[in-house]
């Protein structure tokens, strides 16, 4: 693209506490290698009033995340396109223009005790293997930009039932650390970690390419499933069901996970499922299948 060519940059602006927002279009003279943050900096340098966060400009501080043409991205790491719409991150309250409120979210994940807790004084020098730290290393790459949580379909705000991937990465960073001695199953059980929809959208969006589901969310779901109250033990019930039947017998899984109250609540739907032949109560696997699957469970648990 030619130097100085006018690029259309549209920015969603919103005054503090305003009920609505407006999109303002600007023209920005293109410069070679121009990034989105450069366009915003150029506009404010010209005297435009646009509120946004940025600091390092090198994919490290995590403060410049915004929605770019509908997709949450780090604006310091994205090339400016000829027609670009810049909006604040979804799933967060807007403070002003492109600045979102992060404190309520951070307050929630602080309840996950994001630090290594030890019950004894370690030996010095402490023996620690790289292989033991691999999972934590990957999670330490998190720059807390909030992009994963912004794109998460299960997250519905800091007070919602699911804490969001960002918070679970922070929890897992310490829970997976071999030096940590805190039993985190009680707090994870109540954290809502088991409400992850397993869509992997967070991994797709993460600018640091962190394997969020396998290294953070699944281990935290496993911890939650071991919690003392048994309120987040669906994965265990699911596994028990497969151990018993070789396949998933959904009728018995529904009964065990939702209980009689769940059946009563969904009675209308369950009757309609029955009349629409959606419940296959007679289906049963062969003894061969059940024996082999049970043998696999036993071998895996050794």
């Amino acid at each position, binding site marked *: 693209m030619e130097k100085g060519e006018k690029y259309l940059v549209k920015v969603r602006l919103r005054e503090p506490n305003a009920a609505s927002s407006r999109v303002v279009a600007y023209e920005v003279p293109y410069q070679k290698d121009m990034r989105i943050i450069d366009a915003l900096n150029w506009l404010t340098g010209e005297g435009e009033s646009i509120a946004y966060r940025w600091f390092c400009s090198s994919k490290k501080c995590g403060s410049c995340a915004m929605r770019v043409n509908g997709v949450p991205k780090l604006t310091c790491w994205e090339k400016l396109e000829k027609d670009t719409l810049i909006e604040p991150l979804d799933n967060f309250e807007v403070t002003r223009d492109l600045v979102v409120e992060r404190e309520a979210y951070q307050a929630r994940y602080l309840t996950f005790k994001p630090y290594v807790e030890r019950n004894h004084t370690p030996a010095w020098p402490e023996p620690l293997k790289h292989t033991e730290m691999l999972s934590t290393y990957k999670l330490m790459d998190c720059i807390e930009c909030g992009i994963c949580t912004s794109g998460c379909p299960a997250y519905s705000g800091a007070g919602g039932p699911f804490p969001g991937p960002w918070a679970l990465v922070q929890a897992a960073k310490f829970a997976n650390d071999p030096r940590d001695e805190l039993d985190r199953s009680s707090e994870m059980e109540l954290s809502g970690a088991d409400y992850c929809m397993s869509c992997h959208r967070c991994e797709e969006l993460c600018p640091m390419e962190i394997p969020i589901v396998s290294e953070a969310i699944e281990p935290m779901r496993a911890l939650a499933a071991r919690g003392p109250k048994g309120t987040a033990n669906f994965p265990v019930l699911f596994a028990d069901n497969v151990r018993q039947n070789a396949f998933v017998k959904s009728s018995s899984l529904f009964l065990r996970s939702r209980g009689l109250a769940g059946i009563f609540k969904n009675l209308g739907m369950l009757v309609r499922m029955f009349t629409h032949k959606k419940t296959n109560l007679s289906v049963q696997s062969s003894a061969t299948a059940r024996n082999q699957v049970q043998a*696999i469970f036993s071998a895996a648990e050794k």
Partner: protein
Amino acid sequence: MRFAYYPGCTSKGSTQEVDLASRSLAKHLGIDLIELNDAGCCGSCEIKAVNPDLHLMLNARILSMASERQLEILTVCDTCQANLLSTGRKLEQDPVKRATITEKLRSAGVNYTGAPKTRHFTRILMEEFGERKLAEKVVKPLGELRVATFACCHTFRGDGKELRNLGLLERLTEVTGANAIPIRADGDCCGFHILMVNEDLAARAAGKFLARCKDAQVDCVVTSSPLCHAALDIYQKSAEAASGRKIQIPVLHVEQIVAMSMGIRPERLGLERHMVSVDRLIEKAIA
């Protein structure tokens, strides 16, 4: 053309119509399906949270059952496909893990020698027949139908993603003569995997997508995943409650609309099993 058929648990339980439709379609096209009757569950997204090795072993067992028969796997579930593919890839890429898993499997009487090719029915149709040949078999073009396609997230994200499947659902829908309307957004999810633990949250996610389908006045949703089907069809009333909208949009399996366009009678496709009635849709499609 012969495949080891792995329908998955949901296709044998609450969405048996996809099993019926797939068998009817396969027979119509001369595809021989050898069902892996004793295969059991792939673990969905739950067992890997409990015990990742167990998850690999359950899937490696299914893969080995097809390998023993020297057959490729045909599946009708995006999540089953993802689990089988990710297991094959992990055991191929990590020799240490493969040795551990193979040894544990041997102690359970399973001989894992490697992963056979695993493809969803949609990809098999597009690769083995192709759009032109499939279009030639269409006798009842569904030209009046506006269809919102919904592929499962596991098709294009996660360790088991199969990016070669991207766009196949839309192209296959167009083969039937119907119009594929792009409504699914990147952040959409049907919410299936949390239906048992938080139905309200799942319904909110499904409701967002279905409400947009309503706004776009589509005739139906078509999916390649029986899990997405269950969330969008069986729980559609919950999605209506969550979105505050009356939706009533039929949800079909892709195998059903392909079969309908090829003249297979609706009675052989299990359409009466849908929770949201497809009667008006069939009238419109066949008219």
